[in-house]
Each structure stands twice: as structure tokens, then as C-alpha cells.
């Protein structure tokens, strides 16, 4: 067997000290230990650590330890959720540019619509420069006046109402 120190030595020695090696590997490693003082020393140190750990007696745990632990975890998660700002949660680490594309497209559509709608300021100014009254309206009003005059009812009726409030 090649010396474990040249490859995965530490893992092999730890596994040997923990007793998790299969019987074949364990036998091969023990044969190696007979001829390698350095590995022997490391294995002895590891076994001393494992022996010391075995001597430690575990602290007594209350019967509802798990329930209390899970409750505390849940409370801290909830608290952390509300402490983070709404916008912080919105733009948290999962943000990517892909969802921003529809927003950008919507903005482009609005900007184009705005530009198209306001593309004729010269025409608007021309329209504003023109008198509000269209001369054709005057012509049509005169047509109506002629027609009403032709009806011949304006004298007799309008004596009653000199100027009406409409």
C-alpha cells in the first residue's frame, strides 16, 4: 500500500480512527502502519482525539427542544421578512434583466405614442393662429337667416322677446 500521506492520507487516517473503513482497507492500512512510523504517529493522535470525544458526556436536552428551536427559526424568518423593505424584497438578489424587458417595451410604446401624438406642433400652431370662427359657419348662418326671413314669422313673433337668454 502506498503511504496515505502522498494522497488522501488525512481522510484515510480519520476514517481509520473513526472505525468507518471496510475490513479490506482497514487490514491494508494496518499492514502499512507496521512499516510507517509517521502514519502510526498520526493514527495514534487521531485515536486519542476520538477517545477524548467519547469521554465527553452530552448535555441534557429538554424534551421540547426541537419544537422550541423550530419556533425560533420561524419567528426569525418572519421578522427578517418584514424588516426588509418592500422594494428591497421586490428587487432582491433574484433580480435579473429578463423581467425588466416588458417594462422597457411598455415605456418605448408610451414614448412612441407620445411622440406620434405630438408630432404636429406646427399644424397645431397654425390652427391656433386661424380664427376660431370658420367663415363657412357665417355662410351657413346667412343661409339660415335667409330661410327664416323667407318664413315671414320674425316680425310678429319677436316683438315679444327683444333679446333672449339661451
Amino acid at each position, binding site marked *: 500500500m502506498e503511504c496515505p500521506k502522498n494522497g488522501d492520507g488525512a481522510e484515510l487516517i480519520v476514517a481509520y480512527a473513526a472505525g468507518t473503513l471496510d475490513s479490506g482497507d482497514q487490514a491494508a492500512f494496518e499492514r502499512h502502519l507496521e512499516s510507517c512510523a509517521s502514519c502510526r504517529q498520526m493514527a495514534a493522535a487521531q485515536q486519542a482525539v476520538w477517545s477524548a470525544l467519547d469521554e465527553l458526556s452530552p448535555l441534557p436536552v429538554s424534551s421540547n427542544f426541537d419544537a422550541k428551536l423550530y419556533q425560533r427559526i420561524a419567528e426569525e424568518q418572519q421578522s427578517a421578512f418584514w424588516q426588509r423593505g418592500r422594494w428591497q424584497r*421586490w428587487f432582491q438578489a*433574484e433580480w435579473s434583466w*429578463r*423581467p*425588466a*424587458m*416588458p*417594462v422597457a*417595451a*411598455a*415605456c418605448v*410604446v*408610451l414614448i412612441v*405614442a*407620445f411622440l406620434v*401624438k405630438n408630432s404636429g406642433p406646427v399644424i397645431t400652431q397654425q390652427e391656433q393662429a*386661424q*380664427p*376660431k*370662427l*370658420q*367663415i363657412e*359657419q*357665417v*355662410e*351657413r*348662418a*346667412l343661409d*339660415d*337667416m*335667409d*330661410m*327664416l*326671413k*323667407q*318664413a*315671414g*314669422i*320674425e*316680425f*310678429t*313673433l*319677436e*316683438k*315679444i*322677446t*327683444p*333679446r*333672449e*337668454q*339661451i
Partner: protein
Amino acid sequence: MRWRGSILALSVLVCGVISESTARAQSRRGATSRPPGSPRQSKGPVQTPIEEFETMSPAEQQKALNRLPPAQRQKLQERLQRFNQLPPEQQQALKNLYNRLHQLPAERQDAVRKSINKLSQQPPERQQAIRQELRGMANLSPDERRAHLSGPEFRGKFNKKEQEIVRDMSEVLPPR
């Protein structure tokens, strides 16, 4: 997460559409032009287009007239002159009739115009009878006018066509 972009885009579009329609409504509210034939909604004294034209400055009047071909412009100026030569009472009476006509919905305006045209095609004595009838109706309240138009005396005095003329023309009678 995949929906956030779409929700944001939708929000932007909705805001844009709302602001756009608001701006459009405001611009419509500010617009002064009125399609021909549409009824007037004003509560105060209403100026006819002739009066509006006469209140314009000479430069504005000339600018408006210059939009017409020379022959049409000349004819319009002559018509305006003839109207202004009428006695002031007759001018005012015609303006009042005009304003009442233009308060009616477009289809009723057309009906009145057609009836006035039909009146001119009647024999002179029937024209006189119709005018006399309208003169009498001018002294009645709206309810009395309605009752009169559906009464037997009126029906006995005028044929169907004449009744229609009186009924249509009564819509421009002044309020009592």
C-alpha cells in the same frame, strides 16, 4: 418572480393610458369648435356666427374671408351687407329665431328647414293662414301649444301637410 416584469409593464401602460386620456379630455374640454348642426348648450346670450364675425378685428375678418375664392368672398360680403341693412329689430328677431333653431337636435333642425321650404311652396292664402296660426300659438304656453296642435279645431283648419308645417315651425316659436 417571472410575473413581476409583466406587472410592472402593465402598471406603466395603465398609468400612461390614464394620463393620456386625461390630457385628451382636457384638450377636448378646451376646444371651442362645434360641429355644424349640433345643439348649443350655453346658458348665457348666444352669439350667432354673424355676430361672432362682426366682433372680430378687421384683420381677423380679412384673414377669414381670404380663405374663400374671390367670387364666393364677394358674394358673402354682399350678403352680410344686406343683412346689416335690415332694421335692427328684424335683425334681432332673426338672430333669436336662428338661436332657437340651433338649440334643436340636428334632425329637428332639418325638419324645420324642410317645413319652411314647404311653406314657401303653398298658395299665398295658405301661407298667410299658417303664419297667422303660428302668431296665435306664440301667445300659448308649451302645454297649451301641445294641446292646441292635437285639438280638433287645428285639425279641421289645416290639411295633413299644413299641420306638419305648423308643428315643425312651432318648435322655433319663442317661449311665452
